């Protein structure tokens, strides 16, 4: 009777545990979604920043014209006059995902706008990513660690920074795809099921569709396979996990137009093929080892090794030849800058000019992964006890991602899931140890435990331990009263999970008991640490990462000020200029101009053509006449500059100007950086060089600026009075300036009638404008 009852009890408790786990996961999903809504609540439901606007525009096109037109889309509204083949140069994963969601919703007659779907894609996928983390960590270290890791990932600031509502970028779905691919790989590795291997290839395909970061997967998984082989962990399961992924995955990856033959031609993919060969050799070796007697096997090994060495050399020779002959000459610029952090700043100013391609600083680690940085080492230690295929993979993942995040701030995003998994494991193990110590030392508990052990043997006693843990939970409650509610919930679940490993290795664990007081204090400190993490994450989500950056706000003593100048300018452009007018601006504003103003731009954030960007940079750094000629040869009708001097908006064009000079000078050598610097210093006040004071960017930014504050012309960003106040424009005219002067639009004046201009010139030869003209024509125009 008693046995039946306990069996029933057990089933019930398992069911209860599963339901609890399900609800915890559901809550984690809700948490991941809702913590990203600060941007919508504090600002508005709008697409953020720069790249998301492009993705939004592509999605609109996809929904309007369908998938086939999307693949063939040649966009003539950007990179004028070159255009851009969008269908072949864009990672379509995000767009297709949002498009599909929109289509499903609309077929259910839920008329959400495309914009709404795009805004909320990222939060939805971060909930998915949290769930994927749960599954991955569960495969590595069990449910407890899984739930902790999922809860940590749901609110890790690094990931929030790329996936707040409105941040409609590739990374939003790619991180989910990345974690899910890893989960399926581990799952296949643990089960050896071909079903999961196939799913894994499909998940990898989705990742390839979504983000260029797929090369991380296609290098990490071979590294892990190699590691397994080298450490003698080869098994048929590894073969099943690895080979179908490479074959199917590469075939599928080649279907994505932007990847195409790169999937077999570029060096980023070669590691996987090399390991593919190695794993077959090893598999063959194991097979033969099974067939032959040990003696014959030894002989065979010597034979094969000698032949194999020859073959190896041949293969390496072929590989080297392929690398040398492949279209990109091996590694692409961005990948090279990963391996050599100084590569980009040395050779490619356009990559170096983007702040997210800079190496991170220490504070940014603390900002982005916070306490996880301290928990990661503990997690690594926990992964070694005991080391399995899965935990070795996670260790490899964290080590490589730490390296990559040290190269580029942007790749902090890849580190975040690894850090969460490791911290989840660490926290859950630590909780396990401490709660067990407390439990064994509480007098009433140990007695009942002994009695139970006598009665039912080892198995039911596990259940008793569970009971006890529930009790200790109650004991701990006064201690845990303090932290946030969310945190408490999380910790509770930690406790719950911590019990599981304790069941298995109860006997040994008895010996590893810590003193009661130490355990309680340590638990308290861990909870405090968790609470600190939660507070930090909420702060980061609410304050640091939610600003959409197209609308700015500032708090002052007389309330909230809204600076909506960008949209003001784009709205003006879209309604009051001709549809086919070309707008020139620095490339940062290209995506926004095409998406919000629907006007043709010369360069945009895609930055695929350095020469074209250099042309715009040259025009901006040239004197007015030369600039007018460059712009006129590009059919430009309007020039857009961003100017923050009036309200103190610091990322304006004057602050970016040195990059324009550098990039322009990189292609057109008559633009020299030292001409714009006074004694190596960049300044705009009266000490600035004449080249600087006469360049187009300076003139367009400060035109009539002196009239705003009665002739003082104090620039609030540079905190100085400007050097040249009386600026006259001869070839451009101001057509629009926004309310806070943040965006200024100028129109190119039509070329003057030749005869009249000649007579004018002769009339006023000594005027400053004619001086400029002469100087301007003296310089080389790159388009003539």
């Amino acid at each position, binding site marked *: 009777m008693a046995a039946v009852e306990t069996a029933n009890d057990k089933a019930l408790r398992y069911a209860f545990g599963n339901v609890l786990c399900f609800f915890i996961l559901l809550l984690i999903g809700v948490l991941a979604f809702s913590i990203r809504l600060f941007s919508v609540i504090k600002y508005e439901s*709008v697409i953020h920043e720069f790249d998301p606007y492009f993705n939004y525009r592509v999605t609109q096109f996809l929904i309007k014209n369908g998938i086939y037109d999307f693949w063939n889309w040649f966009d003539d509204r950007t990179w004028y006059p070159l255009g851009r083949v969008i269908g072949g140069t864009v990672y379509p994963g995000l767009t297709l995902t949002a498009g599909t969601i929109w289509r499903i919703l609309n077929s259910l007659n839920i008329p959400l706008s495309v914009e709404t779907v795009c805004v909320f894609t990222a939060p939805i996928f971060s909930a998915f990513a949290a769930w994927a983390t749960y599954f991955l960590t569960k495969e590595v270290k069990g449910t407890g660690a899984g739930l902790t890791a999922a809860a940590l990932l749901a609110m890790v600031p690094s990931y929030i920074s790329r996936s707040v509502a409105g941040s409609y970028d590739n990374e939003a779905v790619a991180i989910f795809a990345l974690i899910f691919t890893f989960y399926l790989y581990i799952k296949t590795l643990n089960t050896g099921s071909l079903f999961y291997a196939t799913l894994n290839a499909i998940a990898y395909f989705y990742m390839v569709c979504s983000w260029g970061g797929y090369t991380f997967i296609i290098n990490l998984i071979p590294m892990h396979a190699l590691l397994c082989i080298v450490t003698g962990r080869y098994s048929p399961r590894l073969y099943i996990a690895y080979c179908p992924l490479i074959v199917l995955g590469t075939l599928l990856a080649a279907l994505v137009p932007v990847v195409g033959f790169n999937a077999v031609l570029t060096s980023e993919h070669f590691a996987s093929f090399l390991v593919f060969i190695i794993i077959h050799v090893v598999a063959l070796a194991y097979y033969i080892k099974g067939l032959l007697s040990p003696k014959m096997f030894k002989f065979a090994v010597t034979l094969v090794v000698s032949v194999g060495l020859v073959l190896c050399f041949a293969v390496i020779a072929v590989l080297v030849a392929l690398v040398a002959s492949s279209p990109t000459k091996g590694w692409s610029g961005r990948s090279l800058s990963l391996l050599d952090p100084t590569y980009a700043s040395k050779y490619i100013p356009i990559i170096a000019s983007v702040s997210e391609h800079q190496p991170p600083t220490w504070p940014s680690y603390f900002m982005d992964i916070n306490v996880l940085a301290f928990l990661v080492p503990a997690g690594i230690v926990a992964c070694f006890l005991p080391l399995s295929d899965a935990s070795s993979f996670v260790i490899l993942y964290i080590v490589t991602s730490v390296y990559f995040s040290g190269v580029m701030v942007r790749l902090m995003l890849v580190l975040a899931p690894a850090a969460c998994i490791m911290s989840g494991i660490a926290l859950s193990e630590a909780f396990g140890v401490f709660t067990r110590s407390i439990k064994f030392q509480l007098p009433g508990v140990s007695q009942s435990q002994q009695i139970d052990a006598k009665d039912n043997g080892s198995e039911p006693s596990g259940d008793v331990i569970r009971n006890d843990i529930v009790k200790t939970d109650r004991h701990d409650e006064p201690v845990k009263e303090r932290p946030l509610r969310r945190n408490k919930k999380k910790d509770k679940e930690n406790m719950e999970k911590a019990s599981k490993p304790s069941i298995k290795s109860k006997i040994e664990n008895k010996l590893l008991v810590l003193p009661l007081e130490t355990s309680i204090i340590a638990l308290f400190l861990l909870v405090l640490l968790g609470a600190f993490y939660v507070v930090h994450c909420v702060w980061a989500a609410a304050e640091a990462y939610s600003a959409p950056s197209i609308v700015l706000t500032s708090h002052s003593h007389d309330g909230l000020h809204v600076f*909506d100048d960008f949209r003001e300018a784009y709205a*003006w452009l879209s309604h009051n200029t001709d549809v086919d007018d070309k707008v020139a601006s620095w490339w940062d504003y290209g995506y926004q101009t095409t998406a919000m103003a629907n006007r043709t731009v010369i360069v945009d954030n895609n930055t695929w053509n350095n020469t074209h960007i250099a042309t715009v940079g040259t025009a901006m750094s040239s004197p007015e006449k030369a600039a007018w000629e460059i712009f006129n040869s590009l059919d430009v009708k309007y020039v857009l500059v961003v100017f923050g001097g009036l309200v103190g908006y610091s990322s304006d064009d004057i602050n970016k100007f040195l990059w324009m000079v550098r990039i322009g000078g990189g292609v057109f050598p008559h633009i020299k950086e030292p001409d714009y610097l006074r004694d190596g210093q960049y300044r705009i006040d009266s000490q600035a060089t004449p080249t600087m004071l006469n360049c187009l960017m300076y003139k367009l930014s400060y035109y009539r600026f002196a009239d705003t504050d009665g002739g003082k012309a104090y620039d609030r960003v540079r905190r100085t009075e400007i050097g040249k106040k009386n600026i006259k424009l001869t070839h451009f005219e101001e057509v629009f300036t926004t309310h806070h002067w943040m965006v200024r639009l100028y129109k190119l004046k039509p070329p003057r009638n030749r005869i009249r201009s000649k007579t004018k010139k002769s009339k006023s030869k000594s005027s400053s404008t004619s001086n400029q003209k002469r100087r301007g024509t003296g310089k080389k125009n790159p388009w003539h």
Partner: protein
Amino acid sequence: MEVGVAKHGIYLILLISLVTLSNLSTVRSSSSDLQIVDAERRIDVTSHIVRVYLTLKVENTGKSSASEVLLAFSPEQAKNIANLQAAFVTGKKKKKSYLPLKVNPTDLPDSPNGTKYFTVYLLNPLSTGESVTIEVLYTLTHSLQPFPVEISQSEPQLVYYHDSALILSHYYIKKQKTMIRTPSNKVESFTRVEPADRKGTELKYGPYEDRSPYSYSPVIIHFENNNPFAVVEELVREVEISHWGNLQITEHYKLAHGGARHKGVFSRVEYQGRPSGSGASSFKHLLAKLPPRVHSVYYRDGIGNISSSHLRSDLRKSELEIEPRYPLFGGWKATFTIGYGLPLQDFLFESDDGRRYLNFSFGCPIAETVVDDLTVKVVLPEGSKNPSALVSFPVEQNLETSYSYLDVVGRTVVVLKKKNVVPEHNIPFQVYYNFHPMFMLAEPLMLTTVFFLLFLTSLAYLHMDISIRKS
């Protein structure tokens, strides 16, 4: 106030039907026996909508009684007439009371120079020797022609107004005078037709006596008018009825400045530094008068929320002050959307025969705007039947079907279209329809069923063993 207007509208409709029936047999030729004893015209050109108040004292000098009066307009003017109302005046100065009269555009076969006519149908036939006073109000849109056509930021906006010093009429006019009110006393020039006179903001033509039918004497007035020329080129108003208690209005505007085109430079320094002298004809505020108890107001455009708007509301009315993203100069355009919710009980009623009707105002809520092309879409709840719209002026009507949240059969949409709409059209219209309350529960029931089935299938799935081999 609103109810009064509604009654007004219903009276008008009743009159229409009565008068049309009684007048089918009237002989048209008798109308030339009428003569106008005294005519007074006041033309208001202070805003960009020209309003003309015409008071006519008509006398029947013929032998038979007359029941209709013809109003004549030049073809240029007729094309710009947005609205024409006539009223029958009884009583003396202070105790005047107005009875609306039915008016219809009419074509006469032998009209000189393409003159267009409107027929005013009198309440009672005018018998020989009797006289009657009629007041006519008509509004003209796009009748102020900017000259110069393009102005720079610092220039004021000057416009032409073309009309005739003499009232164009089908009848002999004994005595007439015309007064024109300009927005300021800055009048560049005006055509003199003696006796003509200008005092401050008022121009006076007349009195002229004994003018034969179809006398015409063109005049041009060139004056400064810096009032906002807010023209809504296209307005789509969507009124969505939810029987759960909300009336959702969404209005899509395509706004333009219809005045003199802006040319050359737009200088922000000038605009902000000297608000009086620079960009006098531009405007940056618009005032929308919304019904009271309005809630969830939003104001946005294709690229997101526009943060510059203020809502002031009290018990009687709500005023929404909106600023487009940028000030509008001549020829500049802007698009935006305004949306708001209203409590249903203020606008939806049940009529005596059990039908429901929506009573809502027709025109554009923004003050002093001309709408070139107005579409009103009334989205009835799913399951509504037999919709019919009742509007007191001619509109184009048709039906559509739209699908919204979880609709299966779709919602009936009554579409009303009208061109050239002025604030005078802001009078209520009614949409009648049949609706069974059961349909309110359709969607909740559908959702419940779907979830029930979902749980049922998952239950079934969990209890089924579909593996081939028992393990």
